[in-house]
């Protein structure tokens, strides 16, 4: 009974993760800028004459809202990119954080869904974070208000979503033979698109390292959703994760996925910084 009251009370305590939200917003903005540079470079392949991703068959009415670029259209795509970036910047500096982030989410969803053949899981991570961020207004943290409770629930949702990614991925892996026998990392590095020639030379002959790496990934994916809630080890869990995702980004070439996961980590932890964010410290003490 005491525990359930404690859980319920959690949503009434003041929202104190403004710094995490700010870092998440900046991280998402950086991701979207990188994605925009990629897309503009590939403009005619993404939405122009040589559009690569085939048209999606839309089943639901609601699908239309996030698939406006289904048939392409370079001008409209550029307009959406501008709206997306302006809204993300606006959400950092202006007070209409929810509406601006939601508009950015809709623009991002349309841009991402229309280039699905060239996307990685990172694009979905960012879209999900953006949706939950659109429910947060870190300026509204008055105790016992709905706005505060929604902030807390949305922040919790981002954290659970990240845990879910690892947990579901772990479930898929334990039914795969190559993950259980420890050969998955070797197999990955042998695939042309997920390797680097120099990595092949260094690692492929080192079976111990590759087997250890495979089991490390499995262990990390099942332990992350548990250990991340333990304050004492949180920093180390995230450090391991950053290492893993930088390897995925640069070693395996899934740059957008690696970066998106590192951005998602800001939901859990933000390094101390004495110079900046004094503004946030002041506003939180006022509340």
């Amino acid at each position, binding site marked *: 009974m005491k525990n359930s009251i404690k859980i*319920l009370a959690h*949503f009434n305590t003041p929202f104190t993760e403004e710094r995490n939200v700010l870092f998440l917003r900046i991280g998402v903005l950086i991701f979207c800028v990188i994605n925009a540079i990629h897309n503009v470079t*590939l403009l005619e392949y993404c939405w122009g004459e040589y559009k690569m991703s085939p048209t999606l068959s839309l089943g639901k009415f609601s699908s239309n809202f996030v*698939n406006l670029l289904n048939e392409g259209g370079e001008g409209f795509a550029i307009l959406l990119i501008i709206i997306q970036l302006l809204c993300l910047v606006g959400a950092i500096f202006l007070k209409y954080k929810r509406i601006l982030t939601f508009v950015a989410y809709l623009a991002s969803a349309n841009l991402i869904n229309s280039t699905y*053949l060239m996307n990685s*899981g990172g694009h979905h991570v960012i879209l999900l974070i953006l949706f939950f961020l659109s429910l947060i207004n870190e300026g509204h943290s008055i105790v016992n208000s709905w706005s505060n409770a929604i902030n807390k629930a949305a922040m919790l949702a981002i954290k659970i979503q990240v845990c*879910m990614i690892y947990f579901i991925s772990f*479930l898929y892996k334990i039914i*795969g033979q190559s993950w259980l026998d420890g050969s998955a990392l070797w197999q990955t590095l042998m695939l042309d698109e997920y390797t680097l020639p120099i990595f092949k030379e260094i690692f492929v002959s080192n079976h111990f390292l590759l087997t250890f790496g495979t089991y490390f990934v499995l262990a990390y994916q099942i332990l992350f959703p548990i250990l991340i809630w333990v304050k004492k080890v949180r920093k180390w869990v995230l450090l391991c994760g950053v290492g893993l995702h930088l390897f995925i980004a*640069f070693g395996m070439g899934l740059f957008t996925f690696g970066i998106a996961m590192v951005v998602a980590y800001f939901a859990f932890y933000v390094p101390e910084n004495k110079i900046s964010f004094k503004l946030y410290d002041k506003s939180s003490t006022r509340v």
Partner: protein
Amino acid sequence: MICLLTFHFTCTYFYTAPDTFNSVKLEIISARYINPFFHQYWALFAPNLPEYNVVIEVSDKEGVWRNISREVLENHYAFRITEKGRLALAFTGIARSAAWECAVGRVNENDPEKYQHILKDLCRGYLRMNSTDNLRIRLTKYDLYSVKEGEFIF
């Protein structure tokens, strides 16, 4: 709030979990809620990884083949943080599916050559060709030790 979060993540679980740990009925019901706003897929190199690489070559004339795979992959290796990687992933992923389609035969009842068509469109786009231009594709399948396993031309 607790009810909303519980409902959302229960649906997310049933929508994304592998069949072994899932219920078909609940997966279909969850999809009605999850799609299109919360769509996600987290298999991430699982359960089993591909066991072959595919080399794509294209030709608009008889006998002159241009190796697209090499071009795309070399760019991907050289420019790691640029858009080249996304092109490489699009090509290799579809080429693998097309090679599998050629080897197995009718994979998709509605469109038996679905991936072959997508790959042709990808290559036409990459080569800046019109959709009516004639294009032949040769896919060569290699196992992970670079031993040739098969060849498909369409």
